[in-house]
């Protein structure tokens, strides 16, 4: 199949950037989207041009590195997949495909389609952990039974891959889904409950500092999330935050 690509090109963070148009003639429907990008880059190198920089690593939908905004949606038109799991069979012969970086004030562009998502790391530094030593001499793993539904819900929240599609999809560029997934995972487990108040206050504070928008509950994040992280987590975080700010001694 043939496709026309409208790709965001930006030399560096300080460059203004613009859309460039490329044509590819020999695309197989069995290619993954990133393999199609590989073909584009090989073509550009052959023409003596600079290939398109984009983030990618595991190419099996778990590392969270790939981050393209394709035809107006993060990770493209398919549901429950990352860009690397998107296949060209989702498109038709002759399609024009817009490819842009994830856009948010909290995710500045580094080059072309590569954005800086270290804001997510800083939010986690602020409290995304349980303060236990790594000595291994903690209590036995089975010392505290955890109800299966709680453990399952904690897992569902922990399945977040930190790709940032929630921010990219949100009309407000809000990072609430990501932050709430982390807050939820720990607040659902007895190990994390001990410092739950401190955690939610600090993580929300850092999230706000990073310049992400406010959640207006549009639900776009949940729909676009490749791992199906639920909005329920945002409600839980709101609850945790209210409880913590009203009762915390900090």
């Amino acid at each position: 199949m043939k496709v026309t690509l409208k790709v965001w090109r930006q030399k560096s963070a300080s460059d203004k950037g613009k859309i460039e148009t490329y044509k590819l003639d020999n695309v197989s429907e069995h290619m993954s989207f990133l393999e199609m990008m590989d073909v584009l880059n090989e073509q550009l190198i052959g023409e003596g041009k600079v290939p398109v920089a984009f983030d990618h690593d595991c190419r099996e939908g778990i590392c969270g590195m790939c981050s393209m905004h394709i035809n107006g949606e993060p990770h493209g038109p398919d549901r429950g997949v990352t860009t690397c799991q998107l296949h060209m069979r989702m498109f038709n012969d002759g399609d024009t495909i817009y490819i842009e970086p994830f856009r948010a004030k909290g995710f500045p562009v580094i080059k072309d389609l590569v954005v800086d998502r270290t804001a997510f790391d800083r939010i986690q530094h602020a409290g995304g952990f349980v303060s236990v030593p790594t000595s291994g001499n903690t209590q036995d793993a089975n010392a505290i039974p955890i109800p299966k539904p709680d453990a399952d819900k904690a897992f569902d929240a922990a399945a977040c891959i930190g790709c940032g599609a929630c921010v990219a999809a949100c009309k407000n560029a809000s990072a609430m889904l990501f932050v709430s997934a982390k807050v939820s995972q720990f607040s659902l487990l007895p190990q994390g409950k001990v410092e739950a108040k401190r955690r939610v206050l600090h993580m929300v504070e850092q999230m706000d500092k990073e310049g992400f928008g406010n959640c207006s509950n549009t639900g776009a994040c949940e729909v676009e999330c490749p791992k199906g992280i639920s909005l329920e987590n945002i409600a839980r975080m709101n609850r945790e935050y209210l409880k913590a700010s009203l009762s915390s001694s900090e």
Partner: protein
Amino acid sequence: MATLDAKIPEGPIKDKWTNHKNKINLVNPANKRLIDIIVVGTGLAGGSASASLAEMGYNVKAFCFQDSPRRAHSIAAQGGINAAKNYQNDGDSIYRLFYDTVKGGDYRAREANVYRLAEVSGNIIDQCVAQGVPFAREYGGLLDNRSFGGVLVSRTFYAKGQTGQQLLLGAYSAMNRQIGKGKIKMYNRHEMLELVKVDGKARGIIARNLVTGEIERHSAHAVVLASGGYGNVFFLSTNAMGSNVTAAWRAHKKGAYFANPCYTQIHPTCIPRSGDYQSKLTLMSESLRNDGRIWVPKHMDDVHAIREGKLKPTQIAEENRDYYLERRYPAFGNLVPRDVASRAAKERCDAGYGVNKTGEAVYLDFSTAIMRYGKEKALVEGEKNASEARIRELGEIVIESKYGNLFQMYEKIVDENPYKTPMMIYPAVHYTMGGIWVDYNLMTTVPGCYAAGEANFSDHGANRLGASALMQGLADGYFVLPYTIGDYLSNDIRTGEIPTNTPEFDEAEKAVKDRINGFMNIKGTKSVDYFHKRLGLVMWNKVGMSRNEQGLKEAMQEIRQIREEFRKDVLIPGSANEMNPELEKALRVDDFLELGELFAKDALERTESCGGHFREESVELDGPQEGEAKRDDKNFAYVAAWEWTGDPGESIVHKEQLEFNDIELKQRSYK
């Protein structure tokens, strides 16, 4: 020929680690503040090591090429993590885990290291649970276990099909705590390009900032390499696109011996290649072999009809199918270890029975399991006269609850519904058991340079069992390295900060810059991937699942040739002073092109078959094991540790003789 000192502690195997910990030197907490440690790689081994070392008080500088430590490829591990907890009361013990691992590794691992691994395995689970890792649980609230290939007990802890992700996020959260405290300084999007030695000791690294292209000097009192395996030397593998050997190879060229490079695990259940544009291969968890039956058509006419699309696999009658694993290995059937299953698939495909267009695929069929589970479920639900369609429907529900996410993944990639038609699978490169040689303390042959996780060679011998990679990475990082490194660093409490304005750093930085400029100035005609794909093809065809003398010799020659061409004709667009993914790839592929040759050389010298290394010349000629791999304990019960001499083909081998005092050497039989 020099012999290597593995520094295995004296005493009975079960006391070695405890005694060793009691005797080694420690650094007092006040002095730890004066000591810097560099950790390269932030996967399970590097992440857990960084967190533990920082917590002990050392100043840690951690490096990863990804944009966040959380994205290291440990995240992609699916199945689980082994630990000798014996929660199931099925007779598991430290000894049994130790025994299974040594046997699974085809008796080519170091006993003392493996025993220590088994010994600390239980602590890993305690640690992870305390960190908030959401392992699967039973309704009683206690941890659930599943069983894995090659063992007789249920000792695998898991978090759905995303165990690696959850464990890595656990280690990452421990890192976050220390980053927040300022004890870890994190360098994302940085790649180590050189090891710096001062007075023979590892004292720092040269790294490239992948965003700005800047070449940076970083000093420390010790350097830990936790940079993973080198499966990407095959171009196509289940590794992440960025996984590379560079950090390990640079250390190797600075004096760290590289051990058993030819031990590579080829995983039998991966999604087959679909075309030349293929960039990587996707693993389907080994657990699928619990319920899937592997087959190819018995008759060549059927094979042709399938390839031409005239026949569907479901139309082939039972008696015209060759369930070759069940035929060859009646005792273990579809559950033979990974290396055996992979070779058997290759054997059928080489004989022309491959079932897709490329001729490199076999079927993994769930229809028998679907009907079996369906019947069971129908009885449980009280539907005694359920129709066949109803039974199938119920069976599909059971299969979905067990493997739903994997089936969905398969359907997304291949666009076929695996509930209705058999899956196609083919083996792919997955894990490298070989790596940098380390002693019992995980120190390489360069003083002060350590290697942990997949980057070292020590625990899996010639074949790794499922769910053991995660165990080893975390054991090294949380519980081994933090103790053993103190023994070395106790001599460094008065050294003070290592300056970076010394001739050693000048020289190392210059070497890196010259190398980069050299590549930028070639301005050849072919892309990096062009060469990488050629290298991969040679590796796969001649140094892959089965190897012979002639092929290996040719491979060494061909790799050398590709390397020479690469260094003359590669084209790298853009400049070195910016983010330049092509330059990053070129530097990695250049190292792969050297490693590949050593890899083939190691395979050539090891004329026995063991684990993942199969030499066509070394098979059982008669008896019940006819045609199976034949190990040669008399001549090859050693670790081949290679010393760099300036040319991979001229590397010198040092042998560490393996002694088995606690386990009797036996032939692995799965018949």
